[in-house]
Each structure stands twice: as C-alpha cells, then as structure tokens.
C-alpha cells in the first residue's frame, strides 16, 4: 500500500517535469501557446454577471476543504480541513476555511437572531442583529485554530498532508463589537473573579466558560469576516471571536452570554477540550494556542514539481501569546537552522507568512520550521512535548513538524529522532 501511494505521487511529479529533474528547460521547438493564435486571444470571455457571486475558476476545484471520513461517525458532528498546502499570504478565504460542528451548521436568519445577556448584570437585555450593528465596532485580523489541530499526530506521523495535519486553522479579518462594550450595556459585574458562560443557538449549544479578564481584553462579537457576512458554517449571523485561544471557545450562532460567579464545567470543558497527561490527570482551562509554525509548501500535497534549482519554501506561523517575531527553517531535520524571511508579518494573534528561498540540488531534505513569539517562546519539538505530556493529550499539539523530501521532490510526513 505504502509503495503504491509513493509510486502514484512519484508518477505525478515525474510527469509534471517531463521526467527530467533539471532546472534548465531548453526549448527544442517553438511553443504553440506562443506561436499559434489561441481561442482566448481571439474570442470573448464571460460577460459580467456570469457568476453574480464568484467562485474560484474550475481549474482550482481541488483547492477545497476535505474531511477524514474515518475520524468521526457522522459529518454532522465532525471537522474538515483548510487546504493550506495550496494557499499563500495569510488571509483564509471563507469558502475554504475549516468547519467544525457538533450538531451541524444551522441556517439562522438575521431576523430570527437574538442575543440574551443575563446573569450577574444590572440589566438583562435582549439584542437583535440590527441592535448589534449599532454598537461601536472594531476590525482585526485573528487566527482561529481548533485545539485538536495536529491532534492525530500525537502518537506519530499519521496523515500525509499539511491540510490534514495542520488545516484546522484559518485567519480572517473580523468586524465586530468588543465584548466589553456589550457587557457594559448590560451593566455586568465585571469583577475579575467572574466568568462568562457563552452559548450558541444550535442543538449542541457548545457552552463554554470564559474568564472575565479575557472577555474584557480583546474578544469580539463578530458579524463580518473578510469584509462580508460570516458564512453559515462559521456561525452566521454572529459568532464570538476569542483571539489566540482555542477555536472551540469561538462559539458560533452566539445566542447567550451569562455572567456567572464560577465556571460552569460544561461538557465542552470537561469531557472534551481537556488535555490528558501521561499520569492520568488532565489539564483543564488550557485555552491559549501556543506558538506554532509549519511549512505549507513543499509538503506531501505540494511536492516539488519543477526540478532542481531555485525553490521557494513557504509556510505559516502563529501564536496565541501575541506576535510572531521570528521563524527558523531547517533543511536537515534540526541539526542546523537558518532564520527565514517574514514575507508578511502578521499582527497580534494573527498568521505570519514566512519564506525561505533556497537553491535545491536534489539532495534529500528533512524540512522543519519553528516559531518564536514575542514572549520568547520557542516552539518545542514533538519529543519535548511528549516528554511533558505523554501521547494522549489529543489537544494542543504544537510540536515541530518534519517533512521528508526525496531526491525526486516527493514529500512525506515523517517522525525523526
């Protein structure tokens, strides 16, 4: 089976390079794409309104969210993954940003939307969607990462593709009302020891407890992403944005915020989203997503098709503690490291894009990237993580990822010493 997969991928790489892994492609005969008149240079294309709301051109049909069918019993309570192997820059288009549902993506109209703020507040209030748009708002870019991103890799290399190992991740520009503004409107008791209980309108309700300090800091009650309405699968019309903290807290279809004196200890913060350690105890309230970087190309789904010579190594880095200040890249499995170029330095708790431009001469490589954030945190290796936590944590796996690149440019997910 393994051999088959390998041969198939190899076949692809070889075909694309004409079987010749050479950087010098010499033209033997004139290229008809240049010398012959092409239809598109002569006839006309689609008129405006051919697609009133555009989708990517059909040649990009493979750049889509994918799920891993054997992971869950049913797609209604499941997850799929962002095709980060095929994206660049930092903003994730909504249409291919990963989905995670506990009871399916519901269709909730703006006119049916209600937000209740109650509990330890002077004025329990009900807000409509229209009301929410009347509060002062802000716009920020933030990454959203599921706590279980890379969770299938705790026990070793398992999925052969960065989409599947790291694709429970997206990064969007959100517009919304700071949570603190809404709490002030309800006259909430904002004492430090208080909590919020946050609930969605879907059948799972996905209730989570959020400490007051975070709520007052940077959380947004968001209604736009990347300039347009949220997508149904991301909580249309209103979701909570909890910058830098695990995606499960970003409650979708937000319907209720209750100020409470202690954590509710709901199912999503006890049975799930707690991190079991090797000794049998579990960490709870592990909200922050620690710094993490991964090379998105080359990667198993994005092998090197172009042969030897100039090669762009590209990837993403992010930290729930703030900004990424540096990313290092290793070509030899962590023996030596070089500082990568930050092609786009993201802001606080947002994705950073890094590039490392090399001349590849066909040597086998063990590619790694490690992130460093503004707190000086250096992304650990998988063995460092396992030494502290064991292999049964499921969540918060931010260990350094290794891609093995063979001399043909085929890439594979591996674990190394």
């Amino acid at each position, binding site marked *: *089976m393994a051999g088959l997969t390998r041969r198939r991928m190899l076949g692809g790489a070889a075909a694309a390079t004409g079987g010749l892994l050479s950087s010098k492609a010499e033209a033997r005969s004139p290229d008809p794409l240049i010398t012959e008149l092409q239809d598109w240079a002569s006839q006309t294309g689609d008129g405006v309104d051919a697609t009133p709301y555009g989708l990517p051109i059909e040649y990009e*049909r493979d750049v889509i969210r*994918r799920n*891993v*069918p054997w992971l869950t*019993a*049913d797609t209604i*309570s499941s997850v799929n993954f962002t095709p980060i192997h095929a994206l660049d820059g930092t903003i994730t288009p909504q249409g291919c940003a990963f989905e995670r549902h506990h009871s399916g993506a519901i269709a909730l109209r703006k006119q049916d939307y209600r937000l*209740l703020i109650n*509990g330890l507040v002077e004025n*329990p*209030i*009900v807000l409509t969607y229209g009301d929410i748009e009347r*509060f*002062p708002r802000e*716009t920020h870019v933030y990454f959203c990462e599921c706590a279980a991103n890379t969770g299938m890799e705790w026990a070793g290399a398992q*999925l*052969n593709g960065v989409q599947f190992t790291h694709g429970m991740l997206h990064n969007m520009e959100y517009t919304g009302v*700071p949570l603190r503004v809404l709490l002030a*409107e309800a006259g909430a008791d904002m004492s430090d020891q208080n909590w919020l*209980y946050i609930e969605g309108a879907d*059948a*799972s*309700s996905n*209730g989570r407890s959020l400490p007051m300090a975070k709520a007052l800091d940077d959380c947004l009650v968001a209604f736009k992403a990347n300039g347009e309405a949220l997508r149904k699968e991301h909580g249309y019309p209103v979701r909570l944005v909890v910058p830098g903290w695990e995606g499960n807290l970003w409650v979708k279809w937000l319907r209720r915020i209750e100020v409470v004196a*202690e954590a*509710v*200890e*709901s*199912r999503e913060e*006890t*049975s799930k989203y707690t991190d*079991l350690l090797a000794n049998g*105890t*579990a*960490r*709870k*309230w592990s*909200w*922050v997503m*620690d710094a993490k970087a991964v090379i998105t190309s080359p990667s*198993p*789904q994005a092998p090197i098709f172009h042969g030897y010579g100039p090669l762009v190594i590209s990837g993403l880095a992010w930290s729930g503690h703030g900004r990424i200040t540096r990313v290092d890249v290793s070509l030899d499995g*962590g023996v*030596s*490291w070089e500082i990568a170029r930050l092609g*786009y*330095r*993201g*802001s606080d708790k947002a994705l950073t894009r890094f590039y490392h431009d090399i001349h590849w001469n066909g040597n086998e490589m*063990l590619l790694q990237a490690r992130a460093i954030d503004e*707190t*000086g*945190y250096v992304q*650990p290796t998988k063995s*460092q993580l396992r030494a502290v936590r064991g292999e049964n944590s499921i969540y918060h796996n931010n260990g350094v990822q290794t891609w*093995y690149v063979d001399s043909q440019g085929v890439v*594979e997910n*591996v674990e*190394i010493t």
Partner: protein
Amino acid sequence: MSRLPNLFVLALGITTLLLGVAYGVATRYQMAAERQVMLQQVAAVRPQFDEAKSIDEVPTTTNLADAEDIGSENRIATDRDAKASVPAPNSLRRLGIGRPALPAEIAAWDVDIMPDGHGLPEGRGDVETGEAIFSDYCASCHGDFAEGVDNWPVLAGGFDTLAEDNPIKTIGSYWPHLSTVWDYIQRSMPFGSAQTLDEDQVYAIVAYLLYSNDLVDESFALSHENFADILMPNVAGFVVDDRAETEYALWRKKPCMQNCKESVNITMRASDLDVTPEPIRLETSTTHSDGEVSDKDIVKNGQKVFKKCQTCHQVGAQAKHRVGPHLNKIFGRVIGGLEDFRYSQVFDVAAKEGQIWDEESMAAFLLEPRTYFQGTKMAFSGLRTADEIAGVIAYLKTYSD
C-alpha cells in the same frame, strides 16, 4: 487616472506633511484638471483629518518614514496600521440599545447546571425507567449498555485506563461532575432531536448512566434532592493549565542554530499507515445531456435534504437500522413492515392493515409526521417545502431496486 485615488487614500490616513509629499508626487503625474480635483478633495477632508490627529497623537516623523516605504516593506505598513486603528470607545454609560429581557425569556434559555447542582429543576427518575428510555432514544448510537456503537461516543466503563496507552474517557472514568451529564443530555441529546426530553426522563437517563458505570445499584432513583450527594470518581483528576511552569519556563530559551544534534534518523512514515484521503483529481470533461440534468438535480437536492434524515436513517448497501429503520426499497414496502425493527404502536397497526408506502403517503407523512401517524417515535418535525419532499422521494427511489 489610477494614481490619483491611491495617493488620495494614502493622504487621508496620515499627516499634513505627507499631504505635501503626495501633492509633490502628484504634480509629476497628473494633469492640471485632476490636480484641481485633488486639491478640492483634500480641502474637504482637512477638518476631519486634524480632528483625527488630535485623538490619535501619531508622531509625524513615523508617518513620513512609512510613507516613503509603502509598497516596499510590509513590515512598516503593518506598524502604521497598528497605530492607525483606534479601539472602540469604551462608554461608561449605556447606549440604550436593545430591550430588557423578560423573565420568561431568561427562564427559557438559562438552563445551565452548575457543578454544585444549582440550576437543576425539580424531578425524579429511576434506573429501570432510564434503561427503557435509553434503549429507545440513545442505544442505537451509544449501545444498549452505553458502550458505544461504531464510532459513536462510549459513555460507560474505562475505569483505571486514564494512565494507560489507550485511555477510555467516559462519564464514569473521566467526567468530574454529574451536573455536566444532566446539563448536556437535556440540551443536546438525543442527537437529531435535542431538547425533546422532559426533566424526569433526563433524571432517569442520568440514573441509568450512573448504573451502567457501576456507580449506583439497580434500585437507585435520582432526583434534585439527592443529586449533590453523588461524587464522580474522577473529580480530583483535573489540574488548572500549568503550562507556564511546566513548559514555558523550559522553552523560552535561546534556540540552538548549529550542530544541534549528532545524527537524524527517520523513525516513522505516514505512508506506512496509509490512512490519508486520496488526492482530488481534476477531471477533464464534464459534458452531460440536457434532459438528464433536471432529474439529476432533483435527486441531488434530495440527497442534500436527506442529511436531515441521516442521523436516524441509512440507505445503501451497508444500511443498518439506526434510531429509525433503514430506508432501502421503501416504496412498495409495508408501512412499519421490517421484522427486525421495533416500531411504535401506530406503525404496528399500519403494518397489520398491510398499508404500503407510495409517493402520496410518503409526501403526507414527511410534511407532518406526527399528524400523519399520531404517536410515531419519529422525533422529526417534518419537511417544509414541496421541493424538499419531492427531492427526498426522488432520492429514496434511487435506492428502490
């Protein structure tokens, strides 16, 4: 033409000095008439602009540096953005948006249960009742003994496995509080028809789950009165996130850059497991004849609608009974006619009478299941539109031979 708007937008964001620069650059490219327009526009925004500056207090020199670098260095552009975005005003007085919540509204939604049992409604249910309800509403996914069917969650057992290689996290072995069980079941289960159980039913199911986890005996009854007496075995199994001490302290160190390891060996390859989904191939041709399309579209639409049914019904070669019976060859099948499925009474009656599913009865049933068959166990409120119904019927027909 295209340069003018760009410079103009740029000028909007920054200071007077910059406007001078923009103006100077503009003269090199713009015709006199356009320059005139720009000057008018600048004049028009001046007042707001000065006001903005006094709030923002951005030093002029920084902005000049930014202006020179724009387009060459993203890094600097980002710094400028960071300063230019001002937090939403933090008003201390209410804005008066929204309306007071009514007590009945709060009561309807504020149903969470605290770890000490606060929030529980009055009620009572025993193990035996719970077992019957569980077998009707839950066992198809979670197993008769809450042991989990296929990939569905396991709810019982797994004691003393948390420190092992394959820990089994269940209500009994892992959950720290009983309140969570009550809270979760009443708001989110049964999957596909959440919030349809009444308080006593939830008490009974929770009692049964305690029983199937060997935490109470079979004569046990759970109520709001004895709820707080139940201590879950793993209540002390959780520590508050301690990464700051156990991890950050170790990993906030200057990283090694050279000769960091002696050697490197590959110890595991993802391809050995071979569990990755196949890559998507872009097909080359997508032609189809026109006549087919509309039928296909109805079926396709029906397939989408069927997602609503899928939590309870399966179709196809591997189809098994779930909460509801499998729906293969449903047209022409006797209503309630499968021997190995436990139907409700109304369905049993229909079966005895030998009623048969046809398009008409199916359409009427799917529109209002509980009106068409009063007393049906099918906890589904019905489909809303004729299109949905026609679609599902067409889709089910593709599984009819």
